[in-house]
């Protein structure tokens, strides 16, 4: 069964995936950072509930979450309708929709490690920065962020890898449209489903290879510029 010759696979889904994962990670960091920071700082009673809600997208099977997102983002819905009115485009079956879905689905992988590492910093370095004249934004970027680098690393690796591999949500919301929403995970899935095993192995190998190289590079960089805990 492993013997079939395979033409070189179409790599469009790969580039699409990398774009999706890249954009998602950037948005996740932008959205997740303030949320994680708030969670790490707040003494509000809401905190526990928000923490729990942040983890909930994980609990639903991806396809099911995808189904609910499909309903939620559809132009027939309030949200999707409003989006269409404003931008003129739909959220479902578009790349934008994929990004929205990925972000929602991977949010816990960004927020949780960030929050943990923000909490680990404690208030001492931030107080020191404040007495040196650094305002909240300033010290967030110049003290909290570098000290939480390990958390950012974890967050990025988990969300990037998860976005690469995730396909249930994306399949549902994106509709598997070649060149637009057909990401590599769907492509491999499809090949396995249609018994194109050789093609599937090849694409998987490419995906794993690229991921491995990226991950090694990221970890090696982290190793070179560590923050000494003591």
């Amino acid at each position: 069964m492993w013997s079939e010759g395979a033409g070189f696979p179409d790599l469009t889904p790969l580039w699409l995936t990398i774009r999706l994962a890249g954009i998602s990670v950037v948005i996740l960091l932008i959205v997740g950072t303030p949320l994680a920071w708030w969670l790490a700082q707040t003494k509000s009673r809401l905190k526990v509930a928000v923490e729990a809600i942040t983890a909930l997208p994980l609990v639903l099977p991806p396809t099911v979450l995808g189904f609910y997102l499909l309903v939620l983002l559809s132009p027939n819905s309030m949200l999707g309708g409003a989006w269409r009115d404003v931008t003129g485009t739909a959220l479902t079956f578009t790349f934008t929709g994929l990004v929205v879905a990925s972000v929602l689905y991977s949010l816990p992988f960004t927020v949780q490690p960030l929050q943990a590492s923000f909490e680990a910093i404690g208030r001492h370095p931030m107080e020191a920065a404040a007495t040196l004249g650094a305002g909240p934004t300033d010290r967030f970027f110049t003290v909290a962020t570098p000290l939480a680098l390990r958390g950012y690393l974890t967050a990025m690796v988990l969300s990037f890898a998860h976005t690469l591999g995730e396909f249930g949500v994306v399949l549902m919301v994106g509709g598997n449209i070649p060149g637009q929403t057909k990401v590599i995970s769907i492509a491999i899935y499809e090949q396995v489903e249609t018994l194109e095993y050789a093609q599937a192995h090849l694409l998987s190998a490419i995906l794993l290879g690229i991921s491995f190289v990226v991950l090694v590079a990221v970890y090696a960089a982290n190793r070179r510029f560590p923050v000494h805990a003591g």
Partner: protein
Amino acid sequence: MSGLVVDFSLDLPGFRLSVAERFAPHGLTVVFGPSGSGKSSLLRVIAGLEGGAEGSVCFNGQTWQGPGRHVAPHRRAIGYVFQEARLFAHLSVAGNLAYAERRARKAGRVPDRAAIVAALGLDGLLTRRPSGLSGGEAQRVAMARALMSAPRLLLMDEPLSALDDAAKGAILPYIEAIRDGMQVPVIYVTHSVSEVARLAHHIVMLEAGQVRRAGPAQDILSDPAAAPAFGIRAAGSVLRAEVLAHHDDGLSELAVAGGRLLVPGFAAAIGTRVRVRIAAQDVILSRQRPEGLSALNLLEGELTDVRRGQGPGVMVRLRMGPEQDVLARITQRSARALSLAPGQRCFAVIKSLSIAPLDVGGSGSD
């Protein structure tokens, strides 16, 4: 309304700090008190780091904290040397200093980087990471960093505790220069009596979260009643003096009420007014003028009171002139043997070398 005026209370679980005090607008105020008395907490409130403090903090007429108002710590232009170094682990020593400098410059204040680095002996350390510093090195960097923010108010929490005397000797003149030259008020927590004696213009004594005494250093250090708090060995008096001459043999001559003093030489122009601290511990009393002693200084004054404390000592006060007293701590046995009584004329015998350079401070501005 210049200077720092605080009137607040702060409740921590099991501890209440309540301070209403006007700090002098310039000069250095030492906050002194036993471990756990609230010294660090006081600095934290002044810096705006204790959200729970209720009351007011005003600095040079600006309300930093008051009803419905709380100026954020980073807008207070303070320099804070924390009790632990709190260096930024992700920056080198130079990076830590630059962090402060950049923000000071943005706010229009310009620190003298070269002078600070030199005073704190950091030249060899600039490229180091905080994790590779010894305890004393980290403390020096922390102090340099606070100075690099060219603050308008300097809060220092035991900044020299991890340093040896030689390092202290190198750094203290720099702190004195700030105290005297830059018109930056300094609030300085220390347990070291010699630092109190050398640096303090003002003293605030805390005990269990309350101010027990506060006032000019001169008054408090020469008040026998306050002595036990510092440890009896810190008691002493501060005399106003004027530099008369610098001699070849390394001694400087000062005019004080009641006579002249030879002290270890120090740099100050003839005519400069200085303060000299004389530890009660170091004074020997004599009813007649003693001869043939190695001690060079002899001041004559009128014995005003003899006060017993606990233990074998008594504290004797000689008046040299208006508000110019010398305290002597001697044994009861000696006091009896010399039949000391108020109203007598007495000589205070003081070794030149016991007035070590540490105790020769600038005149301050009050």
